[in-house]
């Protein structure tokens, strides 16, 4: 009466051909699938794209010349003679300067983070994969930078090298290298001890090949997510540097610098003076929320 299960049956009879019901979907396909179903992230991403688009095409869409001053038209409120967002302390159009200012702010937000993720990521992967003394040397060096608060460090470096946009970006890059390095190192260390790296070594693959095919793909996610969350920090710090006179030099329009020069007029036209701050706030919070959405969609745990 009893049914005996014969385990010596030909192969692929039991679980082999049982497949998940979903169709084959690659990693990035599934990330995009999850993103498509996340309206909040999509909305904020649209705002970020709009800001980027406005900054890139500022010369085409700006209603005025950003450097055109006017003695009579200083510190005028919203809507004064076609100046939709009013004018600043030298009579320049605020909307135009905000659009142009976005170029500098976004550049200073993205470039240092990009360079820092390349350098820091590379150092972290090398240190994490090599382990031992190489790793200790690299990570202790990074710890030296960690000893300072990031704002203080950026101010100190920018101050020591003098103002200007290039020096400001350099200072920010140096500030972001240690945390980038640490994220890459942690991800690499976690991967390194797994059996698939050992299996790759067992095929006789060289270390560079293993890093290229097996490590980078696994480290890229955390590094990318962390980098995207640093963009808003970078924008804030860059504005801070400009505010302190260590970043962009006048008369180049920059949100931080505009905030700094307009602050004396806060009692004259408070709404106009707050605009650069609003721009910084909206940009950085949107970047952050998009970064959060990406992290969720990519399934990266930090």
């Amino acid at each position, binding site marked *: 009466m009893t049914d005996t299960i014969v385990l010596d049956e030909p192969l692929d009879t*039991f*679980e082999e051909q049982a497949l998940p019901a979903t169709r084959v979907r690659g990693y990035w396909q599934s990330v995009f699938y999850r993103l498509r179903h996340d309206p909040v992230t999509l909305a904020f991403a649209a705002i970020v794209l709009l800001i980027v688009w406005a900054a890139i095409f500022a010369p085409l869409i700006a209603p005025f010349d950003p450097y055109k001053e006017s003695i009579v038209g200083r510190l005028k409120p919203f809507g004064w003679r076609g100046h939709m967002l009013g004018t600043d302390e030298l009579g320049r159009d605020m909307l135009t300067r905000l659009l142009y200012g976005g170029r500098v702010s976004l550049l200073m937000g993205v470039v240092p983070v990009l360079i820092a993720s390349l350098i820091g990521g590379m150092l972290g992967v090398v240190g994490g994969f090599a382990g031992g003394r190489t790793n200790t040397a690299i990570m202790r060096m990074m710890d030296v930078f960690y000893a300072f608060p990031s704002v203080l460090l950026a101010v100190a470096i920018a101050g020591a090298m003098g103002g200007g946009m290039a020096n400001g970006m350099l200072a920010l890059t140096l500030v972001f290298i240690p945390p980038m390095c640490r994220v890459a190192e942690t991800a690499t260390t976690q991967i390194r001890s797994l059996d698939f790296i*050992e299996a790759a070594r067992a095929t006789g693959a060289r270390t560079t090949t293993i890093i290229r095919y097996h490590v980078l793909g696994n480290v890229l996610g955390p590094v990318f997510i962390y980098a995207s969350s640093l963009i808003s920090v970078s924008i804030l710090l860059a504005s801070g540097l400009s505010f302190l006179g260590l970043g962009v030099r006048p008369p180049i329009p920059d949100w931080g610098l505009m905030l700094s020069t307009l602050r004396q007029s806060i009692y004259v036209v408070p709404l106009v003076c707050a605009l650069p701050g609003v721009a910084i706030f909206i940009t950085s919070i949107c970047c952050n929320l998009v970064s959060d959405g990406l992290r969720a969609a990519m399934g990266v745990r930090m």
Partner: protein
Amino acid sequence: MRTGLPLDPRDRGGLQQPMLIARDLRKHFPVKGSGKSVQAVDGVSFTVGKGETLGIVGESGCGKSTLARLLLHLVTPDRGELVFDGDAVGAPEGIAVGALRRQVQMVFQDSYSSLNPRMPVRDSVAFGPFVQGKKKDEARHIARDMLSRVGLDPSLFGPRYPHELSGGQKQRVNIARALATGPRMVILDEPVSALDKSVEAQVLNLLRALKRQFNLTYVFISHDLNVVQYISDRVLVMYLGRVVEIGPIDAIFERPLHPYTHALLASRPSMDPAKRIDEPPITGDPPNPIDPPSGCRFHTRCPFAEAVCEAADPVLGPWEGMQSHVAACHIHDPHSGHSRFGNA
């Protein structure tokens, strides 16, 4: 003995020459700060004949996995020698480690962590041939072939990621990956321990079939005696980094020489409820491999331990009449002076 098998073109010494000889392998891992070390593998010697399956059994932490990694030089031995088909591994006139890895591959226990989570499984399988000089197209072709040989439809499973496969399917991919480079010998480090029983049986049968098909030699590591009995020709029993007994499968299972092997066999759950054992045949944990007991390492748990067991290291020696089945135990050494000699 296995004259029916065709000879591999890479074969050098003929069938009589062992595939692998390990001599006095040792690996101690230093423990930071204490100046002491974990004696994971301590003077292990054995041979693996061509076309045979050597089972390696022992409790958790006895050095089985370290031994497996030593055989592939994934962990460099402190001391000892490996001879692969007549060539000393790493010696100037012998075979280089890289060349060894073209002929020996490994299947790991954890089927999940042994596959790259960000790589479709066909790429994981193709990686070995690609690294060893095949063009990308050729490597992909080999991967497809290998996947179908382990019972997975390459067009269905190839593009999938490891998290989309079951444990048994992943382990099949791991086997395909190991075989993709065309090895002559495969080291299987607990390949079925993480699988449930029905899948385990399928994978074991698959391994047997592949062995015939590709004319392979296996080193099969497991803590499951039933599995080892099913698949092995010979068995090596390890205890705390040392070999305590080695011999043909039937001899070991019917006439174990070493008290430890005896206890291991007795600890198997009986299929017959009437023969259920209430007392564990062996109690306690194995001693700490950082400070192993002197003399015979098993003397702290051995029911027959005497003064000589604590004083002297037993030798794994061939005693008269049983060349192929030997144990490192004073009871079986006529010169040890153990009182139970001859009636164990």
